[in-house]
């Protein structure tokens, strides 16, 4: 092989090498972009799934809240004062769990939850005091407060159920 031809093939090989490198680089970039995009999609899907689970748990907690509140009303009517403090505590825990799981909820909904927690703490104290003083708490007054809170919490529950 003469020198001119050798130089020609060397140049072709060099150009081909550069081309292969460029193509390889582009392929690598596309691969990285695709994997990142896939990872982000997976992350977004996981986030959505987590949010969905949280919303489902919130709906379950709300349902437990309304059931407990109905039970509290029945226990008030039955004057079952000795078992009520535990029910108030359980209810406050459920309301606190809903509040903690929904930091982005609208302010009026958070205020409703905070107000309800506080109401049931005051109620618990009032019943404990009545038990200690051996007096009968005002059933009508207590159930009026429970019913008012129940109506408002049901409205919020509805907004969670109607979420797309």
């Amino acid at each position, binding site marked *: 092989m003469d020198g001119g031809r050798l130089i020609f093939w060397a140049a072709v090989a060099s150009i081909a090498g550069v081309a292969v490198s460029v193509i390889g680089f582009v392929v690598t970039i596309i691969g990285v972009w695709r994997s990142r995009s896939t990872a982000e999609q997976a992350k977004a899907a996981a986030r959505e799934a987590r949010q969905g689970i949280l919303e489902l748990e919130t709906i379950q907690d709300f349902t437990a809240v309304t059931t407990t509140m109905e039970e509290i009303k029945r226990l008030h009517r039955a004057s079952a004062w000795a078992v009520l403090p535990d029910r108030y505590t359980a209810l406050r825990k459920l309301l606190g769990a809903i509040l903690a799981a929904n930091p982005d909820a609208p302010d009026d909904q*958070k205020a409703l939850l*905070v107000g309800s927690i*506080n*109401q049931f*703490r*005051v*109620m618990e104290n*009032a*019943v404990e005091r009545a038990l200690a003083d051996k007096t009968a708490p005002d059933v009508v007054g207590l159930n009026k407060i429970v019913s008012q809170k129940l109506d408002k919490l049901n409205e919020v529950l509805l907004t969670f159920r109607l979420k797309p």
Partner: protein
Amino acid sequence: MADPKFRTLIHKLLERSKVGKVQWEATAAEGVYQAAFPQYSVKIYSRPNPNVQALDYILEVADDEGQVIDEITDTDFPDEYNNMRDLFNCARSIGLGLDRALESILAALGPDEPPPAEPPEPPGITDEDVPF
């Protein structure tokens, strides 16, 4: 010593309550009214002061679990006594629904009627009216 921010809190609560911007509600404890906010709540109530013939007013701030974080009485800010009394009365009125009841009754009674027109004054007697 009470946090001076309480003074601002009293003023703001009173100002907002007067225009119906604070949702006070009655609680299971008689004479105790609460207003809830996204993370905290406040409670106000009165109790007789055994030393003087007047009521003491107490304002409590509670966290989102209902635990009282701090409280003040009007004795912490003696110059705020009237404001705390007004705030308590405002909270009571809203909490018991008295303000809504009054507004509803006043609306049912209808708008103010214009006052009846006064009868025209009799014309004054002049010298020309006298025949002699």
